[in-house]
């Protein structure tokens, strides 16, 4: 058995250990789970001994966490567990929380594949959230909101592109500037336009899509009623994957991120590719922001993105600069948010602590896996023509 397989076995054992103590099985004693977790730790240690150190230690970590959680869960009431772990509701919430992340992460993939680090995703998302709400308000409909939101995100992105591409600024510093600017501009306009009242109650909303699938067990409940933008994000994920890896344009796009000199020599305009990529990325991030304001919480608050743009950036790295990977990462972070949201039913102070879970998970993901994933070779490096 190879080291890698031992590590995967550790993950599986830890997962089963957790599954046993949760509804619908809800074993009321932690002993089987602890035994399985011990097995996970042994398998993890085995993996580290045989060369897969990172994967192995992750397996050991999962095993320990699973054992601790198994003890916690078996000690709490079945009623509480059944209220928190309603799997279909959790799945639906996961998709909802993952959607803004997915939009922004797809933007990040597009931008970074062209060689521009876009840490301004957070600000572009915020711009989308505000201008989406404002556009829906004055334009009288959610379509106007989405269009105006996306345009606003594109404008902020164009500023980033101008500095990062034309002026050869440091991408990270320029991106952070975009975040501050967007925070200030959206806050300023929000106070100016809406004052103390906040956005109006009757803000037009992006509609939900009702699917006649309620009869399918589990899955039906989860996807029966989801926002249109959830589906749009999932569709765009496939579209971006096809574009980047199955079309000639996508190949050119990636070549600019990997080796701009070669791309330039081959007659591809590095500047135009990078500008387009950054602006499209800003528009995507803005759609994610607009989902927050007119698809999810039905209002705009100052700074409402709360670091989601940065989590999306982590999802880009975690997903190894692939749309599919970004989707998986967004779902993982979305799940942790969904869980954190339901935990107050358990114990309010602990639930507060769990609000940190998505951020902690992002930290672990970036620290644990970034070493294994390689960014596009020219990512974040301004292109100088010699």
């Amino acid at each position, binding site marked *: 058995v190879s080291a890698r397989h031992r590590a995967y076995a550790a993950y599986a054992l830890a997962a089963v250990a957790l599954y046993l103590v949760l509804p619908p099985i809800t074993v009321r004693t932690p002993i089987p789970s602890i035994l399985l977790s011990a097995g996970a730790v042994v398998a993890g240690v085995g993996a580290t001994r045989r060369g897969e150190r990172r994967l192995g230690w992750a397996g050991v970590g999962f095993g320990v966490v699973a054992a601790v959680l198994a003890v916690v869960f078996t000690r709490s009431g079945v009623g509480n567990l059944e209220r928190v772990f309603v799997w279909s509701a959790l799945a639906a919430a996961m998709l909802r929380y993952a959607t803004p992340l997915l939009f922004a992460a797809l933007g990040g993939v597009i931008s970074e594949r062209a060689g521009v680090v876009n840490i301004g995703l957070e600000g572009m998302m915020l711009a989308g959230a505000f201008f989406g709400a404002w556009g829906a308000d004055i334009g009288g409909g959610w379509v106007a909101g989405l269009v105006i939101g996306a345009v606003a995100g594109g404008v902020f992105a164009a500023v980033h592109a101008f500095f990062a591409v034309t002026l050869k600024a440091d991408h990270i510093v320029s991106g952070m500037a975009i975040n501050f600017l967007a925070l200030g501009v959206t806050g300023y306009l929000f106070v100016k336009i809406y004052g103390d009242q906040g956005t109006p109650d009757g803000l037009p909303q992006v509609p939900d899509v009702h699917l006649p699938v309620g009869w399918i067990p589990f899955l039906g409940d989860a996807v029966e009623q989801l926002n249109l933008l959830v589906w749009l994000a999932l569709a765009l994920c496939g579209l971006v994957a096809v574009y980047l890896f199955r079309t000639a344009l996508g190949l050119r796009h990636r070549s600019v991120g990997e080796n701009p000199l070669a791309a330039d020599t081959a007659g591809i305009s590095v500047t135009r590719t990078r500008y387009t990529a950054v602006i499209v990325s800003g528009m995507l991030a803005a759609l994610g922001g607009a989902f927050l304001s007119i698809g999810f919480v039905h209002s705009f608050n100052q700074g409402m993105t709360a670091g989601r743009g940065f989590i999306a950036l982590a999802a880009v790295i975690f997903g190894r600069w692939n749309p599919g990977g970004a989707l998986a990462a967004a779902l993982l972070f979305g799940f942790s948010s969904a869980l954190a949201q339901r935990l107050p039913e358990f114990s309010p102070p602990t639930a507060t602590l769990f609000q940190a879970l998505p951020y902690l998970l992002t930290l672990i993901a970036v*620290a644990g896996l970034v*070493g294994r994933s390689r960014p596009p070779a020219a990512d974040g490096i301004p292109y100088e023509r010699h």
Partner: protein
Amino acid sequence: VGGPESPGVVTVASRLGGFMRSGGVAVPLVTALVAFVAGGLVVLATGSNPLSTYKAIFEGTGLNWLLPWTSSDDRIIAAQNLQQTLLLTTPLILVGLAVAVAFRAGLFNIGGQGQYIVGSIAAVTVASQIHGLPGGVLMVLAILAAMAAGAAWGALAGWLRARTGANEVISTIMLNYCALWFGVYLFGLGGPLQNGEQRSVPVSDTIADGARLPVFWGEAELQGLHVGIFLALLAAGACWLLLNRSVAGYEIKAVGYNPEAAEYGGIKAGRQQVRAMAICGLLAGMGGAMDLLGWQFKLATNDIQTSQVGFYGIAVALLGRNTALGTVVAALLFGALLNGTSQRNLDPSVFEPALASNLTLIIQGLIVLLVSAPVIATWLLGLRRRLVRAT
């Protein structure tokens, strides 16, 4: 090799070299000026008078206390305002230094906010939970605890960078949120360190009276200026010594400019990154202690969630060119701006404070944007060349 740095890596510090080296004081001055003018255009575009707005903000800062023609009546109010400005400048110096030192090591520390928060948490915990110690001892202990907590928080990001290559920008941002929610958990309703007497208020216990930093200018009851400003200036002096007169500073800067060359010269890049981030965290954590022991005295979860001081540190450091002296000056500018636009000091009939605080954010963003590329420096250089040619 300490971390999986890709070969030939260009750091933030080396890329901002143009801004850091060229143009003396002129470049940051013009940068700030351009940002203020652009901010004024925003004010103008939204139907207010930028000149009277800036004038009202300036009067709120208390800096008119320094002007010889200020009348003695105005001077009393100006003194109070200036005390508040310097009160805000104190943590800004420290979080600014926390960003500046990291920059010198080639790292972008966005975690000043989180390091500041863990510093506040440590300070309030020590100064409110330990009983039976003399006030002065408790105060020193609280400051040291805050510095240690901040240093640990910063070093964690540095260690993750050195050990796993995790980008410090993302890890420090995530650590900010972790610190925030940890603080909200501790002092929130039902939290382990929530106020023992007021069970319905999400706030910590109040610190012991003796542990407060002494006020030396103005009334202690009216939130006068505490001695923290001197501690912050002392820290700035220590940073100057560290960066310009010490081996440790040399090693940090060497890694900042070129980690590969530094490794070749026998400096362990990873170890320097951890060291630099620990120093940064220590400074920002101290900033948290200054605010807590100087004027807050207790920590409400709302304060933790709305505080932005660590983020202003980024603009402060960049505008101050990541030097100790520059950071102090830039901190004063932002302290004045924050105080001048506060609810308490800005006349709402001239300009709404809620708008003005967002204007500060815009100005901050513009400054960081203008620093990110050597636009102003290049422009000034071209201007000078043209002037020289013309004469």
